[in-house]
């Protein structure tokens, strides 16, 4: 038989087994120590969480630097618990939406709205709920904090997973059906791998948002109850109350260290690993690298661990569970007439629930609020809208030229891109006190000077997306532009702006959504007993939350949601569609 191969690189597949000896290497030792340390830290953090609430009052959060590492650990642990919850939510709800047309009808618009709703506003309700669920235990407050983070992470992850499931390659789907894959095997072999790259990217975005919320949700004041969970967020809020600059700086530094560590220890390896799931048939030029991933791959024992894990998951769907396999046989579709009746029933049910919900909302709000409240909230909403528009425009004017400049210079882009991503992940609210102290000291107008805080953390999304867009402009286009001497405005109009536009829209959309959310913490800030407030919807929600006035919180959140959704539909979506249709480089 003739043996044809044009690919020399692929001719040595055994190269990866060269150092697969049985003698433990230094890589084995390092990798083992790292993993063991992680396990111990997780166990310790979890032990602390189940303490009774009284222990929290007995040992309140102190500004003792020795305890800072522990606080940082607790904060990180909360993040990852919320992430685990988000993943469970993603796999169940998104799968349901992709497999059932009836569920899809409800879940997809709900996810779309939840993605753009200011989740910080929910804190009031969830804290009360979870404290009622576990009375007298820290667990209740912990759950409330974790739930707050969950609400900032889950939606876009679920959405991305749903979209992946809907765009499964048809030929792979046919192979799976032809071989009669069980639902579990289909999930592990086809659906999960295919969805992994975009899911990992969305997890990273979610984590960036999560840091912001973990800081805001650890020190919760609802009405008369104030709970400070041990964590970096509480450390910062105590430091703010005591106007302790040094402690504040320490807290910020701790946050930075945590983010760098989680990036290096968790996300880089995950991204490097997820690269093999990218759905493409050609080997890519530039592959994401991670020293830790290389280390773990090199260590012999992690490889054998991975192998036995794979065997376990294979066995779980293998001959041990023939019942699971039998379910792969498709049920015959119901006759069309019955299907239509079921559809109609389902629609009627959904309609009834919607009407019931609207009535409930109306009866709840109408007793407590008047139409004047609605008018006032709408006006405040306009004030916040004006801030968001002006600030995004300003951020665009500043960061687009800088981003393009960087993106066209690969050497700079390589160095600055991680920095921009780090800044986007860094919870900007920990830096607010510095700005507030400055505003107080200089007696500036809070209505104007508090505003920049809203884009403080979110402007980086614009920067790193623009950098990515500018680096993606094809070399031949750049060369053609040089050849014909395109310069100045013509160059921007015909080369740079069309090239970065799709990326810019993605970045600006994220930035504006984040800014709305940030307004809740940015429009009303404290520094010791100094209290600064800007007139706006964010300050309104923050005030109502502090006063425990759930009706006003609900109204504020609802109006803000409407503003955000309207903003997305009127501005960003048309821009997105335009970019999709006209500016795709394919």
């Amino acid at each position, binding site marked *: 038989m003739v043996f044809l191969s044009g690919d020399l690189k692929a001719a040595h*597949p055994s190269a990866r087994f060269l150092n697969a000896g049985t003698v433990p290497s230094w890589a084995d030792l390092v990798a083992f120590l790292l993993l063991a340390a992680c396990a111990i830290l997780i166990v310790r953090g979890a032990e602390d969480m189940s303490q009774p609430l009284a222990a929290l009052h007995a040992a309140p959060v102190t500004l003792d630097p020795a305890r800072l590492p522990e606080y940082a650990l607790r904060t990180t642990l909360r993040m990852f618990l919320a992430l685990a919850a988000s993943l469970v939510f993603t796999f169940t709800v998104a799968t349901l939406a992709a497999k059932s047309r009836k569920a899809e009808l409800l879940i997809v618009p709900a996810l779309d709205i939840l993605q753009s709703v200011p989740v910080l506003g929910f804190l009031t309700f969830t804290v009360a709920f979870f404290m009622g669920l576990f009375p007298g235990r820290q667990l209740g407050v912990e759950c409330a904090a974790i739930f707050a983070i969950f609400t900032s992470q889950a939606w876009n992850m679920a959405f991305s997973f749903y979209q992946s499931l809907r765009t499964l390659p048809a030929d792979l789907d046919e192979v799976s059906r032809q071989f009669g894959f069980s639902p579990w095997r289909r999930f592990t072999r086809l659906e999960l791998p295919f969805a992994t790259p975009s899911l990992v990217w969305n997890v990273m975005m979610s984590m960036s948002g999560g840091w912001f919320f973990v800081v805001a949700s650890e020190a919760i004041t609802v009405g008369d109850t104030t709970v400070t969970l041990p964590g970096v967020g509480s450390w910062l809020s105590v430091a703010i109350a005591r106007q302790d600059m040094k402690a504040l700086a320490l807290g910020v530094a701790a946050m930075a260290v945590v983010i760098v560590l989680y990036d290096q220890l968790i996300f880089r390896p995950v991204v490097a690993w997820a690269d093999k799931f990218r759905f493409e048939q050609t080997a890519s030029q530039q592959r994401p690298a991670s020293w830790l991933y290389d280390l773990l791959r090199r260590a012999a024992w992690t490889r054998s661990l991975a192998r036995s894990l794979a065997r376990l998951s294979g066995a779980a769907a293998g001959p041990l569970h023939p019942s699971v396999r039998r379910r792969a046989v498709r049920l015959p579709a119901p006759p069309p007439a019955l299907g239509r009746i079921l559809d109609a029933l389902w629609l009627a049910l959904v309609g009834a629930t919607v009407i019931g919900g609207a009535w409930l909302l109306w009866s709840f709000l109408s007793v407590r609020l008047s139409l004047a409240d609605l008018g006032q909230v709408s006006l405040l909403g306009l004030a916040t809208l004006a801030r968001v528009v002006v600030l995004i425009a300003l951020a665009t004017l500043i960061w687009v030229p800088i981003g393009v400049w960087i993106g066209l210079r690969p050497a700079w882009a390589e160095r600055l891109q991680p920095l921009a991503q780090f800044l986007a992940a860094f919870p900007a609210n920990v830096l607010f006190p510095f700005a507030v102290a400055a505003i107080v000291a200089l007696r500036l107008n809070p209505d104007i000077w508090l505003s920049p805080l809203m884009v403080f953390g979110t402007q980086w999304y614009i920067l790193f997306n623009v950098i990515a867009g500018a680096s993606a402009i094809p070399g031949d286009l750049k060369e053609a532009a040089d050849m014909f001497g395109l310069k100045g405005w013509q160059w921007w109009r015909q080369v740079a702006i069309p090239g970065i536009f799709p990326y810019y829209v993605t970045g600006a959309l994220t930035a504006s959504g984040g800014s709305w959310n940030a307004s809740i913490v940015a429009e009303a800030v404290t520094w010791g007993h100094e209290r600064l407030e800007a007139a706006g919807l964010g300050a309104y929600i923050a005030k109502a939350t502090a006063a425990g006035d759930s009706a006003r919180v609900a109204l504020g959140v609802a109006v803000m949601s409407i503003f955000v959704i309207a903003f997305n539909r009127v501005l960003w979506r048309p821009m997105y569609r335009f970019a999709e249709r006209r500016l795709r480089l394919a």
Partner: protein
Amino acid sequence: MTCFTPINTAAPLVEATAIRHLYGKAEGANLLVLDNVDLTLNENEIVGLLGRSGSGKSTLLRSIAGLIKPTEGQIAFPPRADGPTTVSMVFQSFALFPWLTVLQNVEVGLEAKGVRAEERRKRALAAIDLIGLDGFENAYPKELSGGMRQRVGLARALVVDPSILLMDEPFSALDVLTAETLRTDLLDLWSEGRMPIKSILMVTHNIEEAVLMCDRILVFSSNPGRVVSTIKVDLPQPRHRQDPAFRALVERIYAQMTRPDQAPAARDGVFPGMGLSMVLPRVSTNVMAGLIEAVHAAPFDGRAPMSDLAQDLQYEADELFPIAETLQLLRLAELREGDLVLTATARRYAEAEVDARKQIFAQQLLAHVPLAGHVRRVLDDRPSHSAPASRFRDELEDFMSPDYADQTLRAVTNWSRYAEAFSYDEGADRFSLDDAV
């Protein structure tokens, strides 16, 4: 192995009877892709389903694979002495899991059947060895060339010991050299009886490939798909493309595929539907001009056998037919007994300069493509001389699926732009006479 053992039962492997399949919703626009098709697959033969795109040959293959349930008709696997009949499939796009290695990809079907790990490994390695992939066990598909990827697809299909190997245009995504090597290798394995299969059923649109490999060829008409003839290929293996008998058979099949009685009478032209409801292919005006010039010039001088054209121009039948049929629709050429014959208008077109060519094309377009004439009349009637494209798209969607409507409108838009019959602004999605001469 089991291939040449004498069989006492002459029971066929598959019997498909009266298969009819409709795509689309139960109500509204739908497309009949298969109409009353019968197929019997016996032991020890390679059968080819030959036809153009839209002839439903892939649909028939997928029905036998159990991936599609045909709207009407029966697919039966008659009981046999040697156990139940099983099928396995090779895909045009290879359909390999990019995140699994070659070995894992080959094992995937065995794994789904619950075969134990050691046996799985043993059988997968044997299949890899058989198909000439040894040394690549741990490579990922993206590290392989197209030919090696399709070998993985073959090994994966063979390792589950199917009675029938189904192949859906298995070589059409490969370059000419690689495809030829793979065909030869597969035929060698088959004739030496080294594959554990009893029969091969393959879909192809490449006439030479069908004649090269198959014992029996079913020629399909398109829109709707019907079997127009069954051709038995008695040439001894190995077959040679330059063999006069081989060439004659290829010619004969070309003639079969261009027979005028293939198109049902209740239709305007060669495309499905009539008048506005005609689904048109996107054929570039450059390609049309090129084909006209090629047939006009020596040695053809206005009349060329399609098989010669395909060979000369490096086109496959599937690519050549839509172009020829578009010319036929525009009354620039006619298909007669496997030959493409230029009309007098086309010969004038071939001799003319750029502007005159455009004029001729515009005349033919507006006179013979109902949609183009319709758009032009609407634009002439309106004082603004412009109209939204969505209006025509909606009209088309009354007759056909949105995808086909889009394709048809794009085809007519491009032809009209070339003919300067009317222009189209993509940003506004409007037709107008603005730039038209």
